[in-house]
């Protein structure tokens, strides 16, 4: 196990290091030092300020030293300084993370819950009316682009049904600490949007996996010794059938915590995805790079956690 852990953690560090190189090359080396200094400084910077920034960022030094400085800062937890807004990227990320986390965690509860329930029902009664309904719904939601679904939900709930729903908020975000009721209200449509487009894959995966597991010999054994069907499915079926679902959930949540670009943009939620789009629009390099690396770290850590949990559950993985 220790050998597996060291190997796997080493791999994760390697991937993260490669990610820093990709991001550095794309945003630092690609545009050249003068362009970088200018984008960092903003359009109104004086030549003296530019020279100062170039010196601060070590842009007057060789490329490998620039990279080392940047990575050194990253290692100390310093994502950079946002010259555009005059604050550290750490505080940009820090203020954006609660919004993204609220969106992702709420939606994840919905999509995992719906996916497991619908997938299990479909697998227990294959080709039934419910199975057809769930699989068709999965196919439809799988085919609808996120922004089309989001706009449709806004149209129906916030505009068409406004006499019933009165004012239905669909743009903006209220922190849970400020007003829990409003926090919930503002997040209903974003949660639904993100959950619906993601749930399709979970329905399909749960259905396939459960169908496979319910055909196994030990399920037949459990049934033949007279165990109630409900218990066969809930205890023996779900435990094995949900392993791939949990894996997928871990990876999806890890990716989503790095920012949900379309849903956040559509509903004006100031999370990581919204911030990065704003930063891209004004070419705010430190924020783009900071959030990109932060998101990459989330994905790598999620992968790592899932792999380690897998190795704990299934010892064959360690070989």
């Amino acid at each position, binding site marked *: 196990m220790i050998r597996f852990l060291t190997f796997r953690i080493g*791999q994760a560090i*390697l*991937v*993260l290091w*490669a*990610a820093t190189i*990709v*991001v550095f090359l*794309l*945003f630092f080396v*690609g*545009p050249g030092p003068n362009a970088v200094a200018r984008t960092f400084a903003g359009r109104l910077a004086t030549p003296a300020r530019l020279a100062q920034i170039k010196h601060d960022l070590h842009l007057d030094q060789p490329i490998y030293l620039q990279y080392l400085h940047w990575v050194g800062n990253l290692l100390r937890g310093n994502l950079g300084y946002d010259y555009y807004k005059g604050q550290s990227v750490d505080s940009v990320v820090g203020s954006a993370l609660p919004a993204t986390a609220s969106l992702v965690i709420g939606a994840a509860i919905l999509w995992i819950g719906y996916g497991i329930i619908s997938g299990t029902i479909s697998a227990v009664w*294959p*080709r039934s009316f419910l199975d*057809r309904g769930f*699989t*068709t719904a999965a*196919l*439809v939601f*799988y*085919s*609808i*682009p*996120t*922004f*089309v679904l989001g*706009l*449709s939900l806004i*149209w129906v709930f916030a*505009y068409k049904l406004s006499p019933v729903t009165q004012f239905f908020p669909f743009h903006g975000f209220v922190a849970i600490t400020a007003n829990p009721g409003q926090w919930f209200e503002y997040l209903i449509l974003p949660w639904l949007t993100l959950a619906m487009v993601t749930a399709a894959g979970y329905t*399909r995966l749960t*259905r*396939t996996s459960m*169908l496979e597991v319910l055909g196994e010999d030990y399920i037949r054994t459990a049934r033949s010794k007279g165990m109630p069907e409900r218990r066969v499915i809930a205890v023996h079926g779900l435990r094995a059938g949900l392993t791939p679902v949990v894996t997928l959930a871990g990876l999806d949540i890890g*990716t989503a915590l*790095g*920012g949900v*670009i*379309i849903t956040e*943009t559509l509903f004006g939620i100031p999370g990581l995805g919204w911030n*990065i*789009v704003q930063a*891209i*629009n004004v*070419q705010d390099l430190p924020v*783009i790079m900071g*959030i*990109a690396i932060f*998101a*990459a770290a989330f*994905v*790598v850590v999620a*992968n790592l956690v899932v792999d380690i949990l897998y190795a704990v559950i299934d010892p064959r993985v360690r070989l």
Partner: protein
Amino acid sequence: MSMIPDLTGGEETESAAAVAVEAREPVPAARKVIQGRSPWQLAWERLRKDRAAVIAAATIAAIVIMALMAPLIAAWIGHGPNQQFIDIGENANGGPVPPSSIFWLGTDSSGRDLFVRIVYGARVSLSVGVLATMISIALGVAFGLAAGYLGGVVDAVIARLIDVMLAVPFLVIAISVAEIWRPSFLLVILIVGLLSFTYPARIVRGQVISLKEKEYVQAARALGARPLRIMFVDLLPNVTAPIIVYASLLIPASIVLEATLSFLAVGIPPPTADWGQMISDASGYYQYGYWWYLLFPSLALVITTLAFNILGDSVRDALDPRGGGVYV
């Protein structure tokens, strides 16, 4: 074995069989009816019997014909895709006008015929969908074959490369690249194609790892075939089925990604008619009663991706009937 006639049915065996028949006694009539069918023929027959697949294929054919005939349709209606009808295509406030006998699906915010623009938009969606899929499949096959067959260091490097591709938020990279370089048709195809080669690469790699231990590959190696020949001549034909399945599901995904880039204003630049762009424009109008502006481009996009996804699922079921058919 000797009891069963050769069922492979190639030209040479046919003539050989004919000679054999002449020499021997006449074959009973019942036996002649049996015909050899390749797995591809079997899959094709299963697909033809699948009602959902036929409807989806017909829908896709209709969209393709529509895209090909876009200039003819525009000429027949008499409205160009970028022609602005400031007098009859806009209402008193300069907003879009609803569907009518002149503008079948209404107009957009610039007084252009929405139907003609949707027809032209199909050209962009389909060509990006198909070309980007070709790029990702080509890259995926090359990387997957190399990683699976060569193994060792090559495999490790490619596996880490794919990990990095999956870790770095590439939609972000795509948006920033499109923002830094000027967005163009070619750039969008490249971005969409490069973004999604990792999954076909993984699938091909997995298949190749199990196939490379088979006897026919060992035989090829024993005959002195070089790795490149084994990869492309011996292994590639045997991974075509999963590649076809994946390609048919990758096309709608690429269409959605292209539309998403356009929606985020980093796709194919205006005034080229593009569904994502139209939906993005409509998002500032539909609330004020201009429902057709959002509805019709969205429908075009969803019908296209849905048809491709249904067909892709059916192709998978037809090629691998053991799956039991997720969408019966």
